[in-house]
């Protein structure tokens, strides 16, 4: 498949309730940093993509409004793959470079959720499944979709709500060390267990927050990348898959089938035959605690039903065997829907470059990292393999 593509510049805004900025200003916070990080200017960019779900913010043509603000005039498009819109933006930009159509491309994601009240956000995000057959009559919410999986998981593997909380405790531990994160406070098991239910068995502290944020990466082909930077981070492969809209079309609620298919494609593309021994880092899609547990299993780093065990044994902390989300994950860093996929790519680049904050930098031995980004509840799945070596 064409040229190998590398990340040559990264930028990340502070995540949180960003009522101090407009959506375009927020996008610029990461685009400007990514440009400076690569030493490139807008003139060098041949194509750009903007991951954005929108609806809760006023602009519809966000690729255009962001481009105008940021001085970008080349071809562009906005991508929608729900919470994986960022990975979709990365895919289009990557393909544009790999095909030779672009020398340099920019992929960014931005979300400005706090431009609407919480009630509107809950309403809009609950509709992100099969609207007619699920929402219209039965009022599903985003937590409810994952709660249906959590109920089944806890039942099948004899696990407890306390076990799920272990994922959130880890997330907040790392969020506290990440200056770009929305939450900077550690939480205890009782904080988590005493938080209110949103959709049983999931509680507030099992859930990622409403977040404003943006992230950007600049991509170049292999040869070009080496001229631009001493530390290109290569995208070795990407796998993607689409699950059913209607949850009733699924036959497994203790995992996400689309994640497994996307991982299989990504592993095949990058020559990964043992995901438990070939990665230094995993950035997994933990919009809810249960999502992180299922991710370990769907990606093949834990056997079915044993994801909980990795958490209890601290094997997915930054100094464990399978470091996962040392940036605080979606749970504590925040989950600005369309920006999340690019934020994960930024974190992987930082980590593989060895530039993460002390206390959360993983040891890079194999030079390889994995990104798992899910849209909806396994409605969209993108799995991407990165390496710092050629």
């Amino acid at each position, binding site marked *: 498949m064409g040229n190998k593509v590398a990340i040559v510049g990264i930028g990340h805004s502070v995540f949180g309730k960003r*009522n*101090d900025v407009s959506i375009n200003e927020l996008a610029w916070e990461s685009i400007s940093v990514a440009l400076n990080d690569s030493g490139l200017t807008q003139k060098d960019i041949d194509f750009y993509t903007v991951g954005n779900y929108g609806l809760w913010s*006023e602009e519809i043509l966000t690729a255009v409004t962001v481009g105008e603000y940021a001085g970008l005039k080349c071809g562009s498009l906005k991508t929608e793959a729900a919470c994986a819109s960022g990975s979709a933006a990365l895919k289009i930009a990557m393909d544009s470079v790999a095909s030779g159509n672009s020398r340099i491309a920019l992929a960014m994601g931005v979300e400005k959720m706090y431009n609407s009240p919480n*009630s*509107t956000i*809950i*309403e809009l995000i*609950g509709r992100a499944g*099969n609207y*007619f*057959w*699920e*929402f219209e*009559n*039965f*009022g*599903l*919410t985003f*937590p*409810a979709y994952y*709660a*249906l*999986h*959590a*109920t*089944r998981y806890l*039942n099948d593997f004899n696990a407890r709500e306390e076990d799920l909380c272990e994922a959130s405790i880890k997330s907040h531990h790392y969020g506290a060390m990440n200056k770009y994160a929305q939450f900077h406070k550690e939480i205890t098991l009782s904080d988590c267990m005493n938080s*209110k*239910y*949103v*959709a*049983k*068995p*999931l509680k507030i502290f099992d859930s990622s927050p409403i977040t404003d944020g943006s992230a950007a990466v600049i991509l170049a082909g292999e040869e070009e990348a080496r001229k631009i930077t001493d530390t290109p981070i290569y995208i070795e492969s990407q796998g993607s898959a689409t699950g059913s809209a*209607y*949850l*009733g*079309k*699924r*036959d497994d*609620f203790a995992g996400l089938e689309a994640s497994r298919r996307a991982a299989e494609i990504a592993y095949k593309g990058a020559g990964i035959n043992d995901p438990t021994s070939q990665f230094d880092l995993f950035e997994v899609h933990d919009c809810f605690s249960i999502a992180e547990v299922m991710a370990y299993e769907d990606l093949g780093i834990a056997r079915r039903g044993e994801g909980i065990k990795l958490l209890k044994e601290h094997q997915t902390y930054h100094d464990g065997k399978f470091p996962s989300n040392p940036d605080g994950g979606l749970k504590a860093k925040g989950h600005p829907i369309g920006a999340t996929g690019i934020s994960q790519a930024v974190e992987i680049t930082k980590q593989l470059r060895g530039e993460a904050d002390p206390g959360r930098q993983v040891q890079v031995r194999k030079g390889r990292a994995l990104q798992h980004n899910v849209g909806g509840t396994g409605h969209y799945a993108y799995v991407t393999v990165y390496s710092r070596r050629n």
Partner: protein
Amino acid sequence: MIKDGIFFDRRTLELRYQMPVKNIEPFFKGLEEGKIRATKCKTCGSIYFPPQIHCPRCNPGIMEWIDLDGDGKLETFSSIEIAPTSFQNEGKYIVAIGLLKEGVRALAWIDAKESDLRIGKRIRLVARKKDDAFTYVFNLVE
């Protein structure tokens, strides 16, 4: 109006969709008669719930309407504690997914006490009238 650095929009938008259901009218007629209907491809035998009028496996296939028995077992459930705004007046509700006898699954509310629910329990999907509209709900089979 600008307050604390925020410009409050003066324009509002009401979204209320107008969704074509002409081709699946037998489903809604069925509900009125107390039946839950699905479609079945005469060519390959696939059953579709929610009903759809084309069989993507056969392209084309010939579809017919069938009545589902309603009998099934509980696969998973969740009590929704924070409901969407448009469901604020519905009271507390529990969403469930059931595997029906015919091999298809349905998602609907389950009309039962939460403490009585266990995965694997026998349930029944039945039609019911609610606020002048016909819908369907799971009941626990004792």
